[in-house]
């Protein structure tokens, strides 16, 4: 029975590793490869930590299991090892992990700066948000500047409005201004590895570069009330031309006076 327990403590980490190993093939992993430039860097850091952590996990669990195995196979008459510890070991297992942890920390700094420090944002986007994403309970209200003009913090005549769908250019850096109308929300785009809280009273610039045109889920990641889970939206990345065509279309729609609509329906 003693050996059973030792094996028990060896067995479950194996199961855990196995589950993780099959996870990507079962869809229990990232929703897709990162599709933004920053996403690649974030994933790289994730896998770096994952390797370090896996080695540590396997090492410590194996050691624990072995300690148990040793205890389980020890004759009951045999004496326990009388020891109060080892100064040398303590120093080793302080210095080595400290070194690794500092190393991990240092590797993060550059990416963090790229993501968050405004002076490190790409020059092309720093002062040129393409849209304002205004979170509210429980949807995303989008405001674009009138085509050809610049986005202002205060709504301007001619601004274009939409809901739950943000059109941004693909393959070039792009920036949005994130705000909230009421409580705290968070702008989360899993496939781009982008997340930023929208804090009441603040206007927070968020930049990313989407590599390929396509649709990307956008959802809320900060509890914002009963309908938190309902904030389903999408980002549509398109060529810059496609985006400007979309905005022109949106402008037409927004100025709809019902008269043109009749003509259009007659033509059909």
């Amino acid at each position, binding site marked *: 029975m003693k050996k059973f327990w030792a094996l028990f403590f060896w067995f479950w980490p194996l199961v855990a590793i196995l589950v993780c190993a099959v996870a990507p093939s079962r869809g229990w992993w990232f929703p897709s490869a990162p599709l933004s430039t920053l996403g690649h860097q974030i994933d790289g850091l994730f896998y770096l930590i994952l390797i370090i952590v896996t080695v540590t996990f396997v090492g410590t669990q194996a050691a624990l299991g072995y300690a148990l195995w040793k205890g389980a196979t020890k004759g009951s008459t045999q004496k326990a090892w009388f020891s*109060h510890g080892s100064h040398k070991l303590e120093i080793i297992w302080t210095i080595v992990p400290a070194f690794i942890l500092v190393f991990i920390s240092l590797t993060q700094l550059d990416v963090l700066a790229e993501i968050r420090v405004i002076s490190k944002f790409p020059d092309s986007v720093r002062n040129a948000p393409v849209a304002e994403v205004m979170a509210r309970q429980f949807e995303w209200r989008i405001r674009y500047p009138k085509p050809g003009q610049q986005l202002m913090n205060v709504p301007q005549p001619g601004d274009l409005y939409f809901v739950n769908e943000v059109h941004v250019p693909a393959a070039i850096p792009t920036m949005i201004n994130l705000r909230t109308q009421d409580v705290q929300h968070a702008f989360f785009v899993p496939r781009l590895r982008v*997340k930023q809280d929208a804090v009441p009273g603040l206007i927070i610039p968020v930049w990313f570069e989407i590599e390929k045109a396509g649709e990307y889920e956008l959802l809320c990641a900060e509890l914002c009330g009963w309908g938190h*889970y309902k904030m389903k939206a999408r980002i549509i990345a398109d060529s810059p031309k496609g985006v400007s065509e979309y905005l022109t279309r949106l402008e037409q729609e927004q100025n709809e006076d019902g008269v043109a609509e009749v003509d259009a329906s007659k033509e059909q």
Partner: protein
Amino acid sequence: MATITPALETHDHSHADGHGHHEQTFIQKYVFSTDHKVIGIQFLITTVLMLMVGGALALAVRWQLAFPWESMPVIGKVFGLFHGEGGQISPEFYTMLFTMHASVMIFLVIIPILAGAFGNFLIPLQIGADDMAFPVLNMLSYWFMWPAMFCFAVSFVASGPTAGPGNGWTSYPVLSDLATASPSSGAAQTWWLFGLTLVGVSSMMGSVNYMTTIINMRAPGMTLFRMPLTIWSMFITAILQSFALPVLTAAGFMLVFDRLSQLLPTTIHSVFFVPAGIIVNNAAPTVGGGQPLLWQHLFWFYSHPAVYIMLLPAMGMVSDMLACMSRKPVFGYKPMVYSMAAIAGLGFIVWGHHMFTSGMNPALGMTFMTSTMMIALPSAIKVFNWIGTIWDGNIQFNAVFLNCAAFVALFIVGGLSGIFMAAVPVDIYFHDTYFIVAHFHYVLFGATLFGVFAGIQFWFPKMFGRLMNDKVAKVHFVLTFIGMNGTFFPMHLLGIAGMPRRYADPYLHGYLEHLLPMNQFMTISAIIMGFAQFLLLGNFFLSIFYGKKAGRNPWNANGLEWSAPSPPGHGNFDVPPVCYRGPYEYSSPEAEALGQDFILQTTAPPAGVKRTAVHH
């Protein structure tokens, strides 16, 4: 450290002055008792029952995640809260479920079971005192839990039966600040804050008591470095608690002041956390210029240290139990003490890692990242030392040991997953996903609760004079361990897959739809784990009356508490204890000389035997 020769003159504990000689009524003895042991047991039973309440709330959460919008058992039908909807719960009810699950588990289970139950019971016994320094304050610290529980109970119904507090246990403003912001933000939120404050009052009374007792009331010869690690951990926890808690209490009052106009028919109130011009639910726009991030800073300034308040005592207890069950001294006693102190110290400068996505200044983010990385270091040192403690020991494979080993094994997982979160860029992805939920459940359930399970079984004979059934305890261990891993390990993967927390219906989002079967598996695991706790309850309550009788020292352990009768009478020790050595001298030559593998801290060295200096 040089061996200190204990003062040999008999110390008079002068019971006659204080208590012990007059008859006590039943109420004085068992209800409003000032005896630390009774208070500890009161805390223990209360918190174990609250554990079941918190567990039931968790199962309701799991039900919704596995069978979204299906008729919820009990709540839908028996209480009939959602009759018209055919038992399908409403989303604000779901927010209440996870909020109250967390609140109950953190404030009514983990914090009070560690500091309240074990702290109270063990501190005087392990340091050789007859009671706490302030017995009445101690009694009050227990009885202040009741108004707290009352407030939490009222909060369930204060805003209507389906809208208990639902803004998360973190209760971020503006959501928690404006009564109109969500169904749960009305009176429910206010009552919740009162409950929180009262738990704080209770903890504070306990902390003051623990610090004073540990500093002033140690038995002769019980030097600081002869204290069991349990006492060290309680001491450090008490310090953490007493420094961090005022901040939370202040923040709580600030939030209550912000809510005053909703609380009382007055227009006078503050706006600490609400910026101007916010309109929710078509109420009048807010005025003033508060800062929602201020709450996050204040809240996490308490709540991050609180994470260690919820862990350190379990670490100390497990160190004690591992040494005893391996019949070996704790490996690296002093590094263990220093690493706990380091955790406590660093614990005060890492709170910002909860706010990496909050829009806080990125320079702060970098600082907090480095300090957070560094806090992994003392935890790692402790893990290595625990393994060192077991290494080549004469292991007793009983339920106590198994739970302790599980503590170490699962704490490793919780610690390692923390590294992902400390790294800001990676955390940006993981923030508010199930990865976080996995992480803190591995620490709080995997580590702390397994430590508590072990502790209950280890000190049960001292509490009641009888042993708990080891076979039942082993079954409980296996079911809980499997259920726990089955429930929480997949959460890592859900987090990596990008499933956000606190979603009543994650499957609305196409990229999460395929995770439903996994969530169903997790819910089944959780149900197994939940029902396994009835084994613990049954074992606990039946063993009080029918357990095998235990002598003073059923585990052949060394601590002072094992030299007292089981259960100890009023005033604890029949012979005033004098401490001659550290608590972990298992299998020492000294013990061998007596023909046993343990030697009580109170056993006087035989006259004429030259004692070797103990190297720590």
